[in-house]
């Protein structure tokens, strides 16, 4: 039992095989893609492995503390930021191999021409609670 984050990038991941921006797909291809993602999440719920899925807006702001009694400083968005997170899915699975298998399936979501995008997804393990028996 371990949780993994399947991380999807707007920018910063290696180029996908079927690398066509979404606004150049047909509406049907977009619908098919959305359907695939929904079905995937529903299937994981059915196998008892789904934890969470979220999508993020591409534009964000940088915020930092600016000293006692002063409002936080905001800056950006910076168009040049290299790594941009698009969203994620959190899964709870029995093994690392299973996490990789599921990430592979998610990466097969259809894109332009109805063909799999072969998008690179980042698989990151959660830091867990410490085990009771260590020594």
């Amino acid at each position, binding site marked *: *039992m371990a949780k993994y984050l399947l991380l999807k990038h707007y920018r910063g991941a290696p180029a996908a095989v079927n690398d066509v921006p979404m606004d150049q797909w047909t509406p049907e291809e977009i619908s098919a893609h959305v359907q695939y993602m929904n079905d995937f999440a529903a299937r994981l719920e*059915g*196998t008892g492995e789904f*934890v969470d899925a979220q999508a993020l807006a591409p534009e964000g702001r940088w915020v930092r503390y600016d000293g006692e009694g002063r409002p936080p400083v905001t800056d950006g968005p910076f168009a040049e930021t290299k790594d941009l997170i698009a969203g994620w899915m959190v899964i*709870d699975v029995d093994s690392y191999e299973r996490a990789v298998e599921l990430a592979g399936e998610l990466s097969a979501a259809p894109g332009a021409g109805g063909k799999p995008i072969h998008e690179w997804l980042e698989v990151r393990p959660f830091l867990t*609670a410490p085990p*009771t*028996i260590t020594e």
Partner: protein
Amino acid sequence: MDEALLRSLTPSVLGILVRRGADFAAAEDAVQDALVEAVRVWPADPPRDPKGWLVTVAWRRFLDATRADAARRRREDLVDEEPAPGPAPAVDDTLQLYFLCAHPSLTPSSAVALTLRAVGGLTTRQIAQAYLVPEATMAQRISRAKRTVSGVRFDQPGDVATVLRVLYLVFNEGYSGDVDLAAEAIRLTRQLAAAIDHPEVAGLLALMLLHHARRATRTAPDGSLVPLAEQDRGRWDTASIAEGVEILQAALARDRLGEFQAQAAIAALHADAPTAEETDWVQIVEWYDELVRLTDSPVVRLNRAVAVGEADGPRAGLAALAALDDSLPRHAAVAAYLHERDGDLATAARLYAEAARKAPNLAERDHLTRQAARLNARRCR
């Protein structure tokens, strides 16, 4: 209301329903319904015979569900065979339920979830909270698990070792939530020990009790880890230690050693030392040798290297470590500790930092980072 009593009755009530002919999945749902009903009704109106009450209510729920089902499918042959309500039969199927819920066809996470619900009497919501997953996900995990074991014959003997692995997982890999999973694992292992006379069941129970006894001292109020050597031994739970040691000694006397007994023996030697300095490391190394013989596990060899470092000095520990694959989890942490003991603070600090980057949990990472920082600060002075 006595929730512990209520939950302890879960497996035998479920066993009775299955023995009366209910299929496991439906019977399990009916028992859950009866537990919920008991929580509602018992505080104001406690039954004289709690088990009989649960059996009656659960059986009624089972029949209601089956009738509804049968009506849907126009099939009503099963429901007419209602047995007369009466005293619960003497035979106890608790052990069979443990076997079923830990059946080898289940994945570890499914076996854990099913055991906590069908044997432990926890609700799906409680189990979901304990493992930090949505309730819908846990509900599916449990119903899939029930489907997986639906064809398993209830009366065939199972393997105790698979049950022990599931209980060990519940004890060792719980998150913290409303439900105290470590305490629940101890309760379930105690119940198993009452149902079957087996030295490894006793060994696991002893191991859990000995570790649980130190629990309050394992973390500081801020949540940071306190290593064994620095724990306040005055706050260890001596009653729990005494019980663990007694159970272990009775098990060892039967001369059928297994890995849980050997692990418990190591825990007992730690518990027995009035100070960290008085720990009998020579005996601990001997028990690790037994464990290596029993399990041939690289993780055990890694722990053995630590014990060798204490018994025969850090150089000997490093020599034992040199034979092991350095990709093992916690290898860098062990190497860092042994190098520090050996006086090589620069190497130790570097290895602590490396170990922190590889740590599988936050508390351990913070602890290792602090160790690296402590050595770096000392070296700079």
